[in-house]
């Protein structure tokens, strides 16, 4: 019944820098089920971002299989990958990466416009999503007029825009102060609980990870430890 949204087998990624080879991921296996809220932890340089990039179709694996929503994406060409990013993945970045020349609503709408949604539908859904992340009334503000926490909320709304099967958040709280960090983690936990969003979050922060239901550790290119979080959301 709870089938995997993401299934990774034997994933290897090797970077070649001149003569030097770096292999942050080697023969990594991972499965994420629909509705899971998973944290990936690990020291700097352990390959967390590399893993998210591969899952998010931002990069291609050297070897192995990545199955998203029953589709093996490992060997797909860029022309297909961009559609998967658009329709199945929602990205949340450490430094928000909102487009500075678009206001909050337009940033959210852009994701839907790229997916070819109609204008009226887009506009309404963008408003709704901004309301969901607590930004009603701030639709017209450009990123530079929003606080960092607010910017990350816009980014979350944007990630949700096309109803992705998987939300990938790479240190989403890394640039935030304690209060905002708390807010954002709560928001993500809420989305997971109330809307059943499947979220994969990379973090250094134990406190952030504590909000998730499953904690993975990445070391030497593999997932070495797996802790199941409590079923109930910690306060």
């Amino acid at each position, binding site marked *: 019944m709870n089938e995997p949204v993401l299934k990774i087998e034997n994933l290897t990624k090797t970077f070649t820098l001149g003569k030097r080879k770096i292999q942050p991921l080697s023969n990594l296996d991972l499965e994420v089920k629909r509705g899971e809220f998973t944290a990936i932890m690990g020291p700097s340089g352990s390959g967390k971002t590399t893993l998210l990039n591969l899952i998010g179709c931002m990069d291609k694996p050297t070897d192995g299989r990545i199955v998203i929503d029953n589709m093996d994406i490992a060997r797909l060409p860029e022309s297909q990958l961009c559609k998967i990013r658009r329709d199945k993945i929602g990205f949340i970045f450490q430094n928000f*990466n909102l487009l500075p020349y678009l206001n909050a609503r337009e940033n959210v709408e*852009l994701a839907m416009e790229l997916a070819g949604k109609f204008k009226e539908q887009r506009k309404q859904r963008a408003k709704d999503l901004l309301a969901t992340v607590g930004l009603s009334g701030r639709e017209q503000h450009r990123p530079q007029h929003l606080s960092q926490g607010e910017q990350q909320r816009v980014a979350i709304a*944007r990630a949700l825009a096309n109803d992705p099967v998987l939300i990938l958040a790479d240190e989403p709280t890394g640039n935030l102060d304690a209060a905002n960090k708390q807010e954002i983690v709560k928001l993500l936990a809420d989305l997971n609980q109330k809307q059943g969003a499947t979220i994969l979050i990379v973090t250094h922060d134990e406190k952030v990870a504590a909000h998730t239901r499953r904690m993975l550790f990445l070391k030497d290119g593999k997932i070495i430890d797996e802790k199941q979080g409590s079923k109930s959301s910690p306060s």
Partner: protein
Amino acid sequence: MGILTRASRNIARRKARALLLIVVLSLALAVITSLPPNIIANQQGNQGLIDQMLGAIQSSSERLNLTATQIDCNLGLQFLHNQGPYKNVTMMVTPFLNISDYANLTSIPEIADVIPMLLYWQPDEENFYFNFTYNGYTYRGFMYIWGIPLEASYLEKFPSVIPTTDTWTFSTKENITAGRNLEAGDRGVVVLQEFIANYFNASVGDTVNILGQNFTVVGIQGTGRYPQYFDIYMNLEDAQKITNTTGQASKLLVFADKVENVDTVENKIKEQYPERLEVTTNKAIINQALENKAEWEKNLQNTQAAVDNLKNTAIMEMGLVVVAQVAIMLFVMLYAVRERTREIGTLKAMGASNSTILGQFMLEGIILSLIAGIIGVVIGTVGASAIGNLLIPRPTDVGFEISVGGQDVAILAMTMPEFILAGLGIAVALGALGSLYPAWRAAKIRPAEAMRHE
């Protein structure tokens, strides 16, 4: 926020840079739009000069054709002293010859035609003198009576036998200012030099009495300046009749059958009539005409070279400006792509396809270029002649006033919508060309790399 909104907002985001780029590009496009009208105007402006030169070459050639085979035969000049009212003046006349004495000329095979001509005047007869006023002064002049054989066969072959200017044998210019020239078969009619017409108070259609005989005036010959001769032209037979010179002529115009035979004919005539006949070929005239022709051909070449040079300079400058424009666009857009690598990564993360990215960057280049194009077309149209004067050097070594720039250019640039449309078209094309590579680079950026970019 469609692709157009994104492109234009991105431009608006970096106002100073966009403005600077637009200023530079619009100047470049002003040059590109203003040089073609300059090229066209220069060519049109100098076409008149070229046509004039072609005309001069043409008439030199015609003159060559008409007079090259002509050989004058007369009895030589005689000097008359102390005769008539001008007793203290020495005058020159050619004695009359009997045409029948030279009937044998036609037996020389290289001779095509022999045409007798009569030039009659009497220095000791008062009625060959008349008074005329020129520039407020009164002068005294002699009338000359020309008898010309008005036979169709001569006139067809040698139109120059109708003398209508002071250097009658050499000229084909008609200078008939009223009425017509003499024609084949004309009898009892005259063409009067204008001073003589004034003296007789006669205009076309009037009757004048010359040496006791009435003639109808069919044409007036103008000189446009102080004349050397005062001529009355009529049929040879009429002239012979009124001057009692029937069967006589002042000279015989001998025509060789071709230019190469002129020397042969000259020698044969001299052999046949060694005693008195003075033979003059048109060698000097031929040489002069050849020289003139060569001179005009050289002028024409220089002029055409100068005009071509203007055009080539303009085209080269346009080429340079086009290259510069594309290069500027290329570097600015490449810089923009580098600078916005993360943005490109973000767009890709959101699912933008490579062609969307390509389109957005190209569109930015095209919009910038089009704005510059609109401004450039305005500057280029209004300032066409100024830009032309600035960029197209006035040639100095032609020896002629070559037309460069000026009013024509401005009018041409303003009144031809083609220039405006072409200017805008070029702006769009160069914008697309200049941003193509940067946009392609942007599209090809690998998303993971883009996100690592600082």
